[in-house]
């Protein structure tokens, strides 16, 4: 509709437009203060911590077709840290309609190659049927300036389907984003304070512990109580527990990470990621070539570091 706008209308529209704030970043959408529903009691927020976490699991058991052979000689090579992980996703669901997991795999392996000098990372997720999901990040491990992917996610979504067809996912493995790393050093150390570590969020559990592979470990744990439900409702009490098994020698290398969510009325789902091996090696420089990959959107680093959760202020909202 082309029309001649009066100077008065133009002035009003432009003043309003110029005063518009920046759109809230996508990772902050769910953390905004909700408007108080009319006639309903107010409720307090459980905790305030906003961060995007890409955790990985370690493991090595498969020999993959596209493993890069270490390169010798003065050809174009890149020094990398190569890590292998194993992922396991399980669930015990009590809901009437679990999400269909046909065609997915609850166990698979993950390889990552980290070029920390060139600031590029490659991840290959290999599923038992031979299919792969591959991702390359550039610039930053957590807020990449270039993000590329090929393949499909074959990890199951463990959760339930609500009465109106909406899913509630208790856990899954995203398979996208930045580096898939369990060990936060050094990739994520230089992203601080925009990345939170297990020492920020967890509490050391006293005593002797071992991970799923029987390796002696320090154990850190975080528990969060809250509410969730279909359609983002706050109807069902839930508990989220994270555990980190840490190398007792250096006290910082995470060898296993586990996230468990239990939602009243729906059940429990767990994702466990285990480091199997890690080594310094070299690969050909074209190992990080993004030809044939699809480009994914990238998100700017937030202007403010995430607010740490305050356990002392945790309150359970009344639905």
């Amino acid at each position: 509709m082309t029309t001649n706008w009066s100077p008065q209308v133009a002035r009003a529209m432009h003043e309003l437009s110029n005063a518009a704030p920046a759109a809230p970043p996508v990772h902050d959408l769910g953390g905004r203060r909700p408007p108080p529903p009319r006639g309903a009691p107010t409720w307090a927020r459980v905790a305030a911590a906003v961060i995007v976490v890409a955790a990985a699991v370690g493991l090595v058991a498969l020999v993959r077709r596209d493993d890069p052979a270490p390169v010798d000689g003065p050809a174009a090579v890149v020094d990398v840290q190569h890590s292998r992980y194993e992922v396991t996703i399980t669930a015990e669901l009590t809901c009437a309609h679990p999400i269909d997991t046909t065609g997915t795999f609850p166990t698979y392996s993950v390889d990552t190659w980290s070029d920390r000098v060139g600031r590029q990372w490659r991840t290959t997720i290999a599923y038992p049927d031979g299919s792969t999901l591959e991702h390359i990040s550039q610039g930053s491990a957590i807020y990449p300036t270039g993000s590329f992917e090929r393949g499909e996610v074959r990890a199951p979504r463990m959760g339930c389907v609500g009465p109106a067809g909406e899913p509630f996912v208790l856990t899954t493995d995203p398979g996208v984003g930045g580096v898939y790393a369990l060990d936060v050093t050094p990739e994520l150390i230089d992203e601080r304070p925009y990345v939170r570590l297990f020492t920020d969020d967890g509490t050391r559990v006293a005593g002797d512990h071992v991970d799923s592979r029987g390796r002696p470990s320090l154990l850190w744990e975080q528990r969060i109580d809250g509410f969730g439900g279909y359609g983002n409702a706050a109807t069902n009490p839930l508990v989220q527990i994270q555990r980190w098994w840490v190398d007792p020698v250096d006290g910082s290398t995470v060898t296993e990470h586990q996230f468990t969510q239990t939602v009243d009325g729906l059940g429990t789902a767990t994702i466990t990621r285990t480091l199997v091996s890690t080594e310094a090696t070299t690969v050909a420089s074209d190992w990080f070539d993004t030809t044939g990959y699809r480009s994914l959107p990238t998100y700017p680093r937030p202007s403010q570091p995430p607010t740490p959760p305050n356990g002392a202020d945790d309150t359970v909202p009344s639905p």
Partner: protein
Amino acid sequence: MQWRIVRSCGIVRLVDVRDEELYGKHADELIRFATTLVGPSLAEDVVANAVVKAMTSPSWPTVTEPRAYLFRSVLNEARGLSRSDRRRVHREEVAARAEVADEPTVSLEVRDAVGRLSLRERSVLYLAYWHDLSVDEIARTLGLSRRSTERALTDARRTLEERLS
């Protein structure tokens, strides 16, 4: 679907990546739309709440025109703001203007003139002015009749021209 883990209010949530892409594509126009409706101070919360509600709605997977759906969601969210919220924000903005003179603000004259428009009039005017939509397109976007849309647009233009001349 591809999922991304985000942490909100301390709770891990799993967000559909494609919804994130959609939001990123329309975020700027949604925030400008919300600013036209409720002013700059409330615009962020209105957009955030509207988008979350829209994308977690049971009907979201069946929406064929997500952009129009998001605009309607923002309008509905703006309608849900209480008068006390709007008055409180107005007081805060008046006080803030005295301290931060170099940030772009809406003049009192424009604020007063726009304040006399209904939310429907503001939303119709916004879509006509910034997106050059036809009356029929605006009506379809906002779920209004053609006649209501025409009338809202005419009334909005006349009010602003009278108040700001």
